[in-house]
C-alpha cells in the first residue's frame, strides 16, 4: 500500500515534466510572443525616434537590442536548454516575472488566490450541503414524483454548462430585475462599509456566480449519493439491521448512509484542482478577478511566464488531487487495497 502511493508520487515527476515541456515548447512556436508584441508597440509609439534605415517600421529596434531582448526572455537558447533552466528556477519556487506587468508571477497569483479559494471552498461546501440531503431523499423516495421532478431539474443543470447558467442568471436577475450586481467581487465602496455590510456585499456579489459554479458538480454528486445509498439499502447488512429491530430510519442513518458516503469522498480529491482553477468562463462573465481569469488573460496576451506558472500549479494540484482521491477511498473503506494483485 505504502509502496503503491510512493510509486504514484514518483510518477508525478515524468507527467509533470511532460506537461510543462509540451506547453513550454508550444510557447516557443507561437507567433506573437512578448518580443513581437514589443516590436509592435515600438512601431506604434516610437516611429519618430526610430533609428532604423530600411524603412520597415517593425525593425525600429536594432539587431543588438533585439538580441538583448531575446536574451532577456531566454529566447536566444535552444528550447530544451531554456526549458531546463526554467525547470531549475521552478524547483527553487521561482515562477519568473510577468512579461506584461513586470511583476513576479507569484505575486499576481497570490493577489488572486483569496478570491479563487473563497469561491472554490464555498462552492464545495454548498454542493456537499445540498447534494447529500437531496441524494438521500431521492434515494428513499425513488420513483416518487419528487424524485422525477428534481431529477429533471438536476439534469438541466448538468446538461447546460455553468457559464451559460451564469449568463442566464446575470441577464435575468442582475440586468433585468436588478436584484444582484452585474459582476465583480465587491463593490467600489467596500472599504467604507461596516463589517456586517461587507459580508452582505460579498454575499450579494457571490450569489449568482455560486449558482453557476455549483450547477456542474451538483448533478454528479447528487446522483452519486442517490445511487450509492440505493445500492446499500438493498444490501444484506441493512436487512440484518432491521432484523435486529432497527427502524428504517435507524438502518439508513447508522448503516447504509455511512457506506454511501464513500464515493463522495473519492470525489473530494478532484475538487482541489477546481478550487483554484475555477472556471475562467464564469469568472469572465461575472468579472471576478480569480486565477482562472488571470490564466485566460495571460493566454490571450501571450504572457508566457504567467501561463507557465498557472500551469505548474494546476498540474501539480491535479496530480496530487488524484492521489488524494485514492487516499480518501482507502481511508474511508479499509477493504480497498491499492496496488495489490487480487
Amino acid at each position: 500500500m505504502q509502496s503503491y502511493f510512493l510509486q504514484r508520487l514518483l510518477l508525478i515527476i515524468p507527467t509533470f515534466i511532460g506537461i510543462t515541456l509540451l506547453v513550454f515548447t508550444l510557447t516557443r512556436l507561437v507567433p506573437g510572443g512578448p518580443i513581437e508584441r514589443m516590436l509592435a508597440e515600438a512601431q506604434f509609439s516610437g516611429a519618430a525616434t526610430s533609428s532604423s534605415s530600411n524603412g520597415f517600421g517593425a525593425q525600429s529596434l536594432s539587431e543588438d537590442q533585439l538580441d538583448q531582448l531575446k536574451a532577456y526572455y531566454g529566447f536566444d537558447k535552444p528550447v530544451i536548454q531554456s526549458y531546463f533552466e526554467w525547470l531549475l528556477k521552478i524547483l527553487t519556487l521561482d515562477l519568473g516575472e510577468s512579461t506584461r506587468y513586470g511583476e513576479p508571477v507569484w505575486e499576481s497569483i497570490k493577489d488572486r488566490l483569496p478570491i479563487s479559494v473563497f469561491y472554490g471552498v464555498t462552492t464545495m461546501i454548498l454542493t456537499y450541503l445540498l447534494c447529500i440531503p437531496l441524494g438521500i431523499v431521492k434515494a428513499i423516495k425513488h420513483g416518487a414524483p419528487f424524485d422525477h421532478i428534481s431529477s429533471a431539474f438536476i439534469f438541466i443543470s448538468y446538461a447546460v454548462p455553468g457559464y451559460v447558467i451564469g449568463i442566464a442568471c446575470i441577464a435575468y436577475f442582475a440586468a433585468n430585475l436588478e436584484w444582484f450586481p452585474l459582476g465583480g467581487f465587491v463593490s467600489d465602496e467596500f472599504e467604507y462599509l461596516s463589517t456586517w455590510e461587507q459580508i452582505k456585499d460579498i454575499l450579494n456579489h457571490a450569489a449568482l456566480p455560486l449558482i453557476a459554479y455549483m450547477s456542474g458538480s451538483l448533478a454528479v454528486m447528487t446522483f452519486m449519493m442517490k445511487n450509492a445509498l440505493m445500492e446499500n439499502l438493498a444490501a444484506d447488512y441493512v436487512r440484518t439491521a432491521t432484523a435486529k429491530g432497527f427502524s428504517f430510519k435507524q438502518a439508513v442513518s447508522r448503516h447504509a448512509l455511512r457506506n454511501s458516503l464513500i464515493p463522495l469522498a473519492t470525489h473530494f480529491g478532484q475538487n482541489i484542482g477546481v478550487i483554484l482553477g475555477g472556471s475562467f468562463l464564469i469568472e469572465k462573465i461575472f468579472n471576478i478577478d480569480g486565477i482562472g481569469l488571470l490564466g485566460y488573460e495571460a493566454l490571450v496576451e501571450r504572457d508566457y511566464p504567467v501561463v507557465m506558472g498557472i500551469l505548474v500549479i494546476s498540474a501539480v494540484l491535479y496530480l496530487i488531487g488524484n492521489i488524494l482521491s485514492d487516499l480518501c477511498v482507502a481511508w474511508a473503506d479499509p477493504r480497498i487495497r491499492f496496488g495489490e494483485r487480487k
Partner: protein
Amino acid sequence: MMFSPQAKRRWQRFKSLKRGYYSFYAICILIFVSLFAEIWVNNRPVIIHYNDTLYFPSYGDIIPGDTFGLGYQWETNYRDLKQVFDNNPDSGNWMLEALVPYNPFENHFIEGEFPPYAPSIEHRHYLGTDMAGRDILSRLVYGFRIAILFSLFLLTISYVIGITIGALMGFLGGGFDLIFQRIIEILSNVPILYIIMIVASIITPNFWTLALMLGAFSWMGLTWYMRTETYRENTREYVLAARSIGASNWRIMFKHILPNSVSILVTFFPFSVVSGITALTSLDYLGFGLPAPTPSWGELLQQGTSNLDYQWIAASAVIALTIVLTLVTFIGEAIREAFDPKKYSYFS
C-alpha cells in the same frame, strides 16, 4: 442487419422510458428539420410561380433578377419581387415564402430604425435580430445544424482514437499501457484552448480543422473505459478458445473482444454529443471557434452578454442551448438505464 435479442430488449426498455424516448424523437425531428433548413429558413422563397413557370430557388444557383423581369443581373431580391407580385394581384404570379424569410447572413435593415430589432411578428423576426440586424431564429437554426454535425464529427474522431488506443492498452498491457497512461495524463492537463489559439494564429480554423484539433484532445475519457474492459475480456474463456485455435492477436482484438465491449459505448454517445456542442459553443463564445460570420450559438451568447439591454439575444441563445442539451441528456439517461436496469430490491 439482425439485432441480437439483447439489443432488442434494450430498445424495448429504452422505449418504455418515456422521457428519454420522446426526447429522442424531438432531437431526431430537430436534426431532420435543420438538415433541410434552406427550405424553412431562407430569404429565397420555396416556390415562385411566374408567367406560368414554377421556380424552386431554395437550393442551387442564384436566379438573376432578369428572370422575373426586374432588370438586373445579380440575385433577385425576393422581398422586392413579393412587393411587385402583391401590387399586381391579377397577374397570376405568386410565391410561397419560407417560414422564416431571412437567411442567417443577411443584415436586414428596417427603415428608420437601427438594429437590433426586438422580436416581432410584423417584421417576421420571430426572435428578433442580433446587433448586426441578422435574424436570430435563422442563425439559431443554422447554428444548430453546424453544432450538431460538428459534434457528431468530433465524436467520430475521438471514438476512433479512444477505442483503438484503449483496446491496445488493455490488450498489450505492460510498457505500452504505462506509457500511454502518462501520455493521457499529460494530454488531459494541457489547456486545449491554448493549442487552439496557437493554431488559430497560424491558420484560420474551419469546421474540419477545429474538429480535428478538439478530437486530438478529447479521446482520453473513453480510453480508460476501453482499457479496463479489454483487460477484463482478455481473461475470458472465449478469448482463450480463440487463441487456442490459432487466431491472431489482431483477429482476437477486433473480431472477439471489441464487439463484446463496444456495445456499451452507446451509453456514452449522447453525453459526448453534449460535450461536443458545449465545446464548440464556448470556443465560439470566446471568439476562437469557427470564423465569423458562421452562424453560431456561442457567438450569439457573446453578443447577448455584451448587450444585456437587448434581452432577447441572450435569452434566445440560452433557451435554445438549454432545450437541446437537456433533450440530449435525457436521451443519454434513458439509454444508460436501458443498458443497466438495476432493480433495487427495496427494503420494505
